Every structure is written in C-alpha cells, then in structure tokens.
C-alpha cells in the first residue's frame, strides 16, 4: 500500500491519525449536545423528573467526551503548520479566515458556556442554564459549519484567485468561497451522521440496560428516543448521501470512479460492483460481484448512460482505489444496517414490543459503536478520494508539505500514537464505566467537589452495584 515511508507519507499518516481520532469526539458530542438541549427543554416544558435524570446521566458522559474533543482539537489547529507549512502559506488567505471564524463564533461560545452548563446548575436560574446548554449545542453546529466549509473548499475550490506569489487569495466574493459547490451537501451529510452516531450510542446504552432490566423507565425512555431518531434520520441520511455522491460525480469524477471501482469506462451502462478486490497493478477489480447497469442508474438515473472510468484519468492524478473503494462500502453498509434497525424499531412499536424484544436490543447494542466506524470510513472516502491533491486539481499533496525530515515526523507520529491510545483509551474506558451504570431516579450531575467514593460516577454507593463496563471497548477504526 505504501511504496515508501517518506516524509510526505508520514505527514499524511500523522494527519489522518490525529484528525480521525479527533473526529470521533465531535461526531458524538455534536449530537449529544443537541440531545442534552432537547432533554433539558423537555424538562423545563413538562417538569418531568425523568428528563432531568437523563440530562444528568448524559451530561457526565458529555463532559468527558468534550474534554477529549477539545484537547485533540487543539492538536489539529497546529497540524497545518507543523507538517503542512507550504499548504498553510498558500491556502492561508482563503482557509485561514474561515477557521478564524470558527474559533470566534463557535469555540469560544462552546467553551464559554460549557462551565455554566456543567457546574452552574445551582448558580444560575433554570432558564439561564438552559440558555447555556443551547449555546453549547449551537456552538457545535457553527463549528461544523466553518470547518466543513474549509474542507469543502479544498474539495471543490471556487471563489479564489491565484496570486503572483503562488498564494490562493480571495476573489470578489467570500460567499463563493464559503458556499462552494460541495459544502451544503457535506454539511448536511455530516450533521446527520453525528445525529445518527449519537442516536446509536444512546440507543445502545438504553438497549444494554433494557437487557438487564426491561422495567427500567429511564432506559426505556432513552431507547425509545434514540430509535425514533434512527428511524427518522437513517433514510434521510441515505438520500442525502446519494445527493452528495451526485455532487461529487459532477466536481470530482475521479473520486467517484475510485468509490465505484470503475477502472474502465462503460459506454453503455456501468455495473454496480458490490464487492471485489481492487487490483491497482492490473487496473481491475478481482473477484467482483456486480449488478449490471445499476451504477449508471444510481449516478445518471438511466440504465444505459455512459460512465467514464479511471482509464480517462492520467495515472498521476488518480486517487488510491483500494482504500476509497472499501471505506465507501463500509460506510454505505453501516448506513443500511442503521436503516434496518430503525425500521425494525418501528415494527416493534407497532407490535408493542419495543421494550420487550431482546433480539432487537442485542442488535442495537452491537450497532452502538457503528456510527463512529461509519463517519471515519466516510472521511477516509472523501479525503483519500481527494488525493493526490490537498486543494483539488490545484495543489498537490506532495507540494503542500513542510520542509520536513522523515525521522522528526516519524518520532512525533509515534508520540501521538502512544499518547492518544493511552489517554483516549482511558477516557473511553471511563465513558464505558459511566454508561454501564443504570440511569435512575434522582441522578446526580457533574459535581465538581464531590470527593471520595461517591464521585466515581456521581452515584451514591448503593447496595453492591456491579461495576463492570457496559461492553468491551472497540477501537473505532
């Protein structure tokens, strides 16, 4: 897969590693922030204790997740400069302002109100506290808006000019840069992905506790809410993904060819390759199982529409097919599995057995981490599919890198890997431990000064509670 571990390849691996690890946390915390806002809003509206209990249950998990998102995010804001200095210098005038807007309009908002959200329950009034929760949730959205605008501009650059010194500089309209062609699709697709990711985590935790005690009202409530989300959002997401794919076909045809595994052009209807082993040496997909004409139908809405393949793209401009082909299939596969669970839950509601169908609960439990796998696979699809460019068609990855020595990049990569697995492994373990505790009446929130054994999960030690993690941690790759 890698010809050689030169500085460029190492820098790419480092970026991929740090961004993948980072994105795991916002993928969960964007959706969770919204869920917390909904819970607190429902509590304010109805006054029902169950909503406050669930709010306090999930806010502890949110606090740990958010902290990990923050620290891994700071790393990202310096990754551009350490390993990708040429890219920073050249693209800075265009993407820098967008990222500055992200800090100004999102990060400060989230961080500024987070303290009140976590620790201010008894310091400010109910409405003001709800405002803080809302601000954190809105902040996560604004953050997604700007950073996805940056990424989309790198994929489908518009609205810029190229200056004499080789820099990309803004043209007449910032609007064209921010709202570049792939941005609306990517933004919607990503936000839905975070909602689904969160829904399946919440649903999985609810399912786990229902398997242990199907009478637990708190577990029922969270499971039900999560399954509504899954049933509603999964089909919307598949539809949005399809539109996003058509947009990609229009602007980045080579990426779609790699996703589809189309090494060859098909003048009269291209097949959909379900599975196979892309063979980049021979430029063909081995052992493939395909459905004739279906790819043309999906992409062109016509069975016999011609589709170009990678044979029309110069070798030097091709993305690596194997990774893109596989990551795309993993993402789509999980998307349909999520749809399946959503429909199953609707059927269970119809049968009135939503809380009384262990097989459904087991399936939901298995699917709990699936959102993370899907979002990482999706990012691999779109980012590796952008290769060999950082700014699509205009700036090559090989020309974006800092003047680096491979040993330095390798050393820092090793340091990141060791620290990340250790720190975020511990964090994931703590989250699992919180999730393994059953949600209950009179749930305690994040209290910053409770010390001693009480503090372990904010739950007073009751009669011999089993303290085993909910499920074994699975790495999200």
């Amino acid at each position, binding site marked *: 897969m890698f010809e050689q571990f030169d500085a460029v390849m190492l820098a790419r691996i480092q970026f991929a590693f740090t961004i993948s690890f980072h994105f795991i946390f916002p993928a969960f915390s964007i959706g969770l922030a919204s869920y917390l806002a909904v819970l607190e809003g429902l509590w304010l509206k109805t006054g029902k204790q169950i909503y406050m209990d669930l709010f306090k249950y999930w806010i502890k998990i949110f606090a740990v997740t958010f902290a990990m998102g923050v620290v891994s*995010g700071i790393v990202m*804001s310096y990754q551009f*400069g*350490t390993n990708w*200095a040429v890219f920073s210098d050249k693209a800075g005038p265009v993407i820098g302002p967008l990222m500055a807007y992200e*800090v100004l309009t999102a990060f400060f908002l989230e961080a500024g109100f987070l303290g009140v959200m976590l620790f201010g329950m008894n310091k400010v009034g109910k409405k003001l506290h709800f405002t803080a929760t809302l601000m954190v949730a809105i902040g996560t959205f604004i953050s997604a808006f700007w950073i996805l605008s940056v990424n989309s501009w790198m994929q489908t650059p518009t609205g810029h000019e190229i200056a004499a010194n080789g820099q990309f500089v803004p043209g007449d309209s910032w609007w064209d840069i921010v709202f570049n062609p792939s941005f609306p699709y990517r933004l919607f697709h990503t936000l839905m992905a975070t909602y689904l990711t969160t829904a399946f985590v919440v649903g999985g935790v609810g399912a786990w506790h229902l398997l242990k005690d199907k009478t637990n009202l708190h577990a029922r409530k969270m499971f039900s809410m999560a399954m509504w989300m899954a049933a509603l959002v999964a089909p919307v997401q598949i539809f949005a993904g399809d539109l996003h794919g058509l947009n990609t076909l229009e602007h980045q045809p080579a990426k779609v060819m790699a996703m589809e595994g189309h090494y060859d052009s098909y003048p009269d209807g291209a097949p959909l390759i379900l599975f196979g082993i892309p063979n980049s040496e021979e430029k063909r997909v081995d052992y493939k199982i395909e459905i004739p004409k279906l790819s043309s139908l999906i992409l062109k809405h016509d069975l016999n529409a011609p589709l170009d393949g990678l044979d029309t793209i110069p070798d030097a401009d091709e993305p690596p097919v194997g990774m893109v082909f596989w990551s795309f299939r993993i993402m789509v596969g999980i998307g349909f599995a999520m749809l399946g669970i959503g429909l199953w839950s609707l059927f269970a509601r119809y049968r009135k057995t939503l809380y009384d169908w262990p097989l459904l609960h087991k399936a939901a439990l298995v699917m709990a981490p699936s959102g993370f796998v899907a979002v990482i696979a999706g990012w691999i699809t779109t980012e590796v599919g952008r290769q060999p460019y950082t700014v699509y068609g205009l700036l090559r990855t090989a020309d974006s890198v800092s003047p680096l020595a491979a040993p330095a990049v390798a050393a820092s990569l090793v340091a990141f890997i060791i620290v990340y697995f250790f720190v975020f492994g511990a964090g994931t373990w703590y989250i699992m431990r919180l999730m393994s505790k059953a949600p209950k009446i009179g749930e305690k929130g994040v209290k910053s000064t409770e010390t001693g054994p009480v503090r372990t999960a904010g739950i007073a030690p009751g009669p011999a509670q089993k303290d085993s993690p909910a499920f074994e941690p699975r790495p999200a790759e």
Partner: protein
Amino acid sequence: MDLTVIWAFIIAFAVFAYVVMDGFDLGIGIIFPAFEVGDARDQAMNSIAPVWDGNETWLVLGGGGLLAAFPLAYAIILPATYPLIIIMLLGLVFRGVAFEFRWRDPDHRAFWDFAFTAGSFAAAFSQGMILGALLQGVEVADRAYAGSWFDWFTPYTLLTGMGTVAGYALLGATWLIWKTEHGAQDMAYRLAKPAAVVTLALMAAVSLYTPFLDSQYWTRWFEMPNILFAAQVPLLVLILTYFLFRGLHKKQEAAPFLISLGLFFLGMAGLGISMFPYIVPDQITIWDAAVPESSQIFMLVGVAITVPLILVYTGWAYWVFRGKVGTEGYH
C-alpha cells in the same frame, strides 16, 4: 494605521489573553504538587474547572489567527519550533483530560494529578522556549524555514522557558490566593513570594541577554528616541514589584493577581517594542506575511462583532463562579 498593523495588534491581544488566562491554569498545574491531597487540591482544581476550556481557546485563536492573518509567519515558525510544538500539544492533552479524569477515577487520581502537573509544566516550558526561539531568530529561505531541527535549543531559550514556567507559577499562586481559603490559600501565599522572586530574576536575565542576541534589539532599545519608550518598561516593572510584595505581605487577596497580570502585560509590551514591525525577527515583517486586504477586512468584521461578545459572556461565566471556591464547591 493600516489593517496589517491592526491585525498584528489583534494577534498580540490573543496571545496576551492566552498567556494570562491559561497562564494561571498552567501555573496551578505547576505548583499543584505543593498542595495537600484532598481538600486543597480539589479547591485548586475547582477554581479553574469551569473556565479552563475558554482560557485555552485563546491559544486556538492565536494559532488560527496567525494562520489566517500572517500565514507565511505561521508556515515558518511552526516548522522552526516543530518538536516544541508537539511537546506543548501533548502536554496540553494530558493537562486537559486530567480535569475530568481525576474525578472519574479516584483509584488513579494520583496518576492524573501527576499528569496534570507534568502536562502543565511541559506546555509552559515549551511555550517559553518557542518565544525564545522566535526572539533569537530563525533561518528563512524562499518562504520557508531553512534551519535545522535543533536550532531552538540554546541557553537563551532555556532561560525563556524557565522564565515562563516561573511566571505562570506566579499567576497560578496569586489566582489561588484570590479564589481559595484556609490551607489552600496559606500554601498559595507561601508559594507566591518565591515564584515572584524567580520570575523577576529570570525576567531581568532575559532582558539583559536579549540585546546581545542581535544588533537590532540593541538599536531598538538603547538609541534615541526609542529609549524614551523602552525605559518606561523596567521602571513600571519596579513599581509593580513593590506593590506585589507589599500586597503579599499585607495578605491582600485580589491585588497580587492583578499586579501579576500587569507584570505580564509589561513583559508583552517589551516584547512588542523589541519585535515590531517584524513577525519573524530580521526576516519577515508583518507586511511580508500579511494576507491580502480582502481577507483582512472579512475577518475584521468578525472580530469587531464577536470579540466584544466573547469578552462579555466570558466575563459573565467568571462572574457566575465569582468569590471563593469554598470547601463545599459549587452549590
């Protein structure tokens, strides 16, 4: 006053805001081992738990703002101080998660407390060294860093690193004087004096060392009419030093912290006088590194609207958690 100068001030403001706000967070981490396990440590942690994340965000604005307003400087300084940046980031990772993890895992609290201290120390030391590395100059050729991997490692940068650690410790100690009571506050008073002495000694050492680094600083500081401005800085430092020790002696609570902020401000002002108009000393001026005007204006609109708002709601968050942390914590 052109836009580039305005942007230089905005970046300087972000860096200053970061240094003082996260400075006391990191400082608490640095002096943390001196505090007794239990109540004193919990008070120290709780005094910053609700605000540290907002404080750290100024670092993202500093880095992100540098990329946005002076991408060439960002593209030179980061590779030039590559290992320091990585150490700083990893230090901040440990420091940041320690806030949450120490509560989640009482069995390993001692370890996360250690991670909190080690991470804070590493971040503070590397930040000071990055500053020193920049002041002593970096090699540039063809819009890129052209030096070697360890140019940043010199006696001078060790001095600036230690100075930053001591300065942060002073901020941390004086913050705790303000926010805590009983044993924790007594310990903070005891730590503040040596921290102040060491900080001032290292500030003086760095100030004496700097003009010999490079003729430019000499000219900037000691020739007319610059000396008229430059001379004010040490004078004001002396005045503040007097009030700082007087405040510590009289057991004042808020004054020592505010005076320490003043000392940091003077240090930054001295730095600004030394560097202006260069962003990479002797190599790249702020105008060389600046983005086109359209980028500057686009961002300036955002800054003009958001920064006042940020200051308001950040101020409000501090206001919500005003007063002593208390042994009972936030109720």
